[in-house]
């Protein structure tokens, strides 16, 4: 035994805990296994035990990048029709970045009651509306910022500042990975670009890099550097890996006590297995025609998001813990950020995603995955019930009140929780902060948000921060 056994590492953990965390994420199985005999929170596989029995094993976050308008989607405001064209004189701070403020603007979209529950959904989502009884709409969301960058950060990390771990990182850290051949936290961005703030939105922040989100592409080579290099045959690739393994093992022989060296040898084999598994997931050639049609792969408008939704279902099937899909990318009208023409904007983005999301729900149910999977839909904030500038059908940012929905494992569907004021500006009933939503997601995944912490800079940091947060009890079954 060594006399130099360290007491603590950089973050005040024992070395063993540190290594466990370092290896416990994405494909860190080898290291995790080595540590598992004494690891505190670890079982013998790379999955960790939740705090209590989880309702959901997987989570899909459908991120409507740019901020969908609540009054045009899930928060019907008849009063807006009444006051249409009038100027707003309420006390809610309207607009962002000194943009022009126009008049109150009614929704051009019709709302109807759907399903047995009679949940009101606008006609932007005819396909999703068929699953109305599964959706739990939260009409009283609010956040702390008017800007996209800090808004996206807050929705993903709970903080308006960069450098914090994302929801997916927390889940990877807290629950480990189910399938070491695939990343536990996958991100798929829009072909028009990523969200503002880019990789800060799937960063592991101060946690080890193994917990960061892995960019996954829906075609070609899904993961960076996954493909065997051009000009190298598969046989050569295997021969080279075999030689590497053999030389590394000889090197290890006289250094057999070192777990990091062994883990690194294993990581090359994991990478090799990942190659075949990840390629299988994106290979949709054998998908039947009915499924392709259901997801909208046959239509240019829905093909991209449909493909991602179908791959999402297959990733879930393969044990991926957290998947985030972005609808919209780049700036303004390429996202849900309908500053100049919210009507056309939302028709486009809802049109691209409505059918695929409905198909994903149906397919999850068909495959028996629905009971294990939590779906979250929404953007970084909502949009103002006023137009942006007179005679322009654009809407500005509204972070005081907006709508999101959750569905699936452990969620009581067919209901709307909370309310905004008469015109839809501000959440006034059952107010739900972004961090309350995070607490609820963690709860559904079997984690007590007050107990999942990571030591950093002298504090036990939490996804939900230091303020008191509340699980949205009404949303739970």
């Amino acid at each position, binding site marked *: 035994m060594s006399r130099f056994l360290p007491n603590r590492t950089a973050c005040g953990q024992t070395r063993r805990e540190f290594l466990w965390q370092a290896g416990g994420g994405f494909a860190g199985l080898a290291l995790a296994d080595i540590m598992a005999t004494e690891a505190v929170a670890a079982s013998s596989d790379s999955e960790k035990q939740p705090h209590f029995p989880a309702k959901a094993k997987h989570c899909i976050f459908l991120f409507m990048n740019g901020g969908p308008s609540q009054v045009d989607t899930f928060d019907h405001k008849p009063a807006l029709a009444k006051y249409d064209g009038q100027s707003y004189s309420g006390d809610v701070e309207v607009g962002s970045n000194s943009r022009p403020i126009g008049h109150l603007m009614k929704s051009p979209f019709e709302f109807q009651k759907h399903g047995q529950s009679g949940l009101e959904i606008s006609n932007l989502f005819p396909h999703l509306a068929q699953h109305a009884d599964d959706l739990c709409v939260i009409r009283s969301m609010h956040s702390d910022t008017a800007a996209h960058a800090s808004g996206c950060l807050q929705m993903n990390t709970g903080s308006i500042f960069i450098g914090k771990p994302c929801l997916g990182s927390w889940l990877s850290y807290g629950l480990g990975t189910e399938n070491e051949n695939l990343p536990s936290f996958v991100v798929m961005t829009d072909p028009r670009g990523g969200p503002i703030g880019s990789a800060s939105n799937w960063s592991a922040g101060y946690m080890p890099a193994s917990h960061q989100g892995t960019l996954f592409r829906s075609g070609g080579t899904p993961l960076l550097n996954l493909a065997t290099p051009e000009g190298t045959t598969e046989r050569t690739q295997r021969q080279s890996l075999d030689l590497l393994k053999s030389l590394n093992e000889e090197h290890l022989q006289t250094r057999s006590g070192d777990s990091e060296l062994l*883990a690194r040898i294993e990581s090359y084999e994991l990478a090799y297995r990942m190659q075949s598994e990840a390629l299988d997931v994106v290979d949709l050639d054998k998908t039947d025609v009915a499924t392709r049609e259901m997801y909208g792969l046959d239509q240019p408008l829905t093909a991209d998001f449909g493909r991602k939704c179908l791959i999402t279902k297959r990733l879930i099937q393969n044990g991926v813990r957290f998947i985030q899909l972005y609808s919209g990318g780049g700036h303004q009208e390429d996202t849900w950020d309908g500053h100049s023409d919210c009507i056309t904007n939302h028709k486009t983005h809802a049109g691209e995603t409505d059918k695929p999301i409905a198909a994903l729900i149906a397919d999850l149910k068909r495959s028996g995955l629905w009971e294990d999977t939590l779906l979250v839909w929404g953007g970084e904030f909502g949009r103002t019930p006023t137009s942006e500038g007179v005679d322009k059908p654009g809407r500005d940012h509204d972070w005081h009140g907006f709508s999101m929905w959750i569905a699936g494992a452990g969620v009581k569907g067919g209901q709307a929780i909370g309310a905004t004021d008469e015109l839809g500006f501000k959440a006034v009933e059952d107010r739900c902060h972004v961090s309350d939503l995070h607490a609820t997601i963690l709860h559904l995944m079997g984690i007590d948000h007050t107990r999942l912490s990571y030591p950093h800079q002298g504090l036990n940091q939490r996804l939900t921060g230091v303020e008191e947060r509340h699980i949205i009890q009404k949303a739970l079954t």
Partner: protein
Amino acid sequence: MNHPIILSCTLLSAVLLFPLMVLGVDYEKEIKPLLLERCVVCHGSGKQEGDLRLDAGSLILESVVVPGEIEQSELISRVVSLDEDSRMPPEGARLSERQIELLRSWIDDGAIVPKDEVIPRPPSEHWSFQPIRQSAIPKVKDKTWGRNEIDAFVLAKLESEGFSTQPQASQNDLLRRVYLDLIGLPPSIKEQSDFSKSGDLDRVITDLLSRPEYGERWARHWLDVVRYADSNGYERDAEKPFVWRYRDYVINALNNDKPFDRFVLEQLAGDELPDRSVETQIATGFLRLGHWDDEPADPLADRYDQLDDIVSTTGQAFLGLTIGCARCHDHKFEPLSSSDYYSLVAVFNPLERPRKGRTEQTVTVDDTEIYAWREPSAKAPPTHILKRGSPTNLGDRVEPAVPAILVHKQPSFPEPSSTTTQRRLGLAQWMVSDSNPLTARVIVNRVWQQHFGQGLVNTANDFGIMGAPPSDPELLDWLAHWFMHDANWSMKKLHTLILESRTWRMVKSQESMMRYRRLEVEAIRDSMLFVSGQLNRKQFGPAMKPRIPVAVLEANSDKEKIWQASDEREASRRSIYVFIKRGLIVPMFETLDLADTVSSCPQRQITTVATQALSLFNGEFTQRQARYFAAKLRDEVGEDSQKQVQLAWQTALCREPTSIELKQMTEFLENESLEELCRVILNLNEFVYPE
């Protein structure tokens, strides 16, 4: 096993309590953390409100708990009290029903506490807050082993504990070790052969410390500590103009062996020094390296967030204290109060960020554009404690001061000059004075950590009560004292002392003080460039941008404009010159555990995951270097595969291959290309885990 407990609930009427099925409440797991969380801030070793301490079982039993007697235990009556004035805790939420029941059950079960529980000492007695002593050099039995004082401390401890020393690593291993350690590059074939003739490692150390590559290697370690990046983060993630001058300043400071005390003074107050120059003012860029949202959600809060970035980083980098935790309330675990925190805020509050709207501006000094803050006036704005950290909830006004726990008497801050408040100068002067017990210990430990893979204190940014205790406190103090008084804060002298010790020259193993530790991504990448013959030694100046795969650029909101890659020659410079964009880290760097770019990083994380294997085995960078490496080998030894293998091995690993290795590789070359072999070599564990 205990029976379920039914509570006699006299004080909590109307509340329905379900009895807990309790199998004996565990003090360590259930009670102590609860008391620590809610009570010990006021009733602990730091503060003893009402002369009460709840931070050790024995103290609790002496005061507010009578085992088995819930009714007589004041602990219970105070937490359930309906009287607002006497109910504890006085702030925050009341204890939950479950928490109260835990306390009751524990008392009812006899309030069992561990016999060996240590009573925390008063924080003022904490080891790192004591003056640095010149420890006596211990006597050792074996007079032949040691080379210097470090060895004496290490050997004495080994002897007293009955352990033996580890053997010295081989000459080849030591040569590669010292090169990678000091300059982050392996030795060339010629350097290897020179050394095999002389065998003089001490001379090699002196030589390496005089090379420009030393500064380029070790500056990066400091950049980790000061959260260096080339951009601000957030939506625009704008480039920090001329911030690279700060990076060059650090490289030069190390290469010129600028005394560390002067290095501290310049970074905190280079514009307030009597002998200030362009260089010393570039150094204050340290204060402006943080992330910055040019479109903050709350501009007033943002101002304090920026000050917090400076105070937190300063606290960790120079003092090893997590002072940032005292922003909203007194530090829960450290003897640092909000007043300590805001007194430091008062030091930096006179600073202003030069900007025009969202666009940052530079400061011009003698025609040189500098990325630094500006202190526009010698009159300081008032600084108040912000209650609960809220910028609209002003508490008492504070003046500049250093954390009270560290000093018997506050140092006197200089009077304002005609141009600035001189507050930062006052802080910096105290930091490098004898009356500060921390700065020398903290830097000596950082240097030790880098050389050995782990520090004498394993929490390099946290020397507080929650930090790790030193494994060898006398050695640490001796080093710190020696560093200040004998070495005059010379980093090169400190390196030399450590590297000439036998302790540093031991073989690596689980039992040794020398641990295997993967090279940082910069050293891996630079070593590859060196081995392949492509390393561009151009020093200093604006950062360069290696190519980033399109697949990664596509995930950005500004995918066309976000990253204009440099040409290959420029991109083959050392990794310290790679542009660190907070929103888009070069993937190989990100995967291979680059330091956190947002807050001070005390030590690189080491993760081992499959995406690293993908990056290093399949990634374009390694592919290219493998091709160059193969071409270089062919140039030098032609087509003889045995010679190719031998040279490749010698170049990459500084040793000859064993016969088994040689056989495997020559057999491989019968069917596969030399390029493939080079790719394998660049991926070997031995390549990235130096002996």
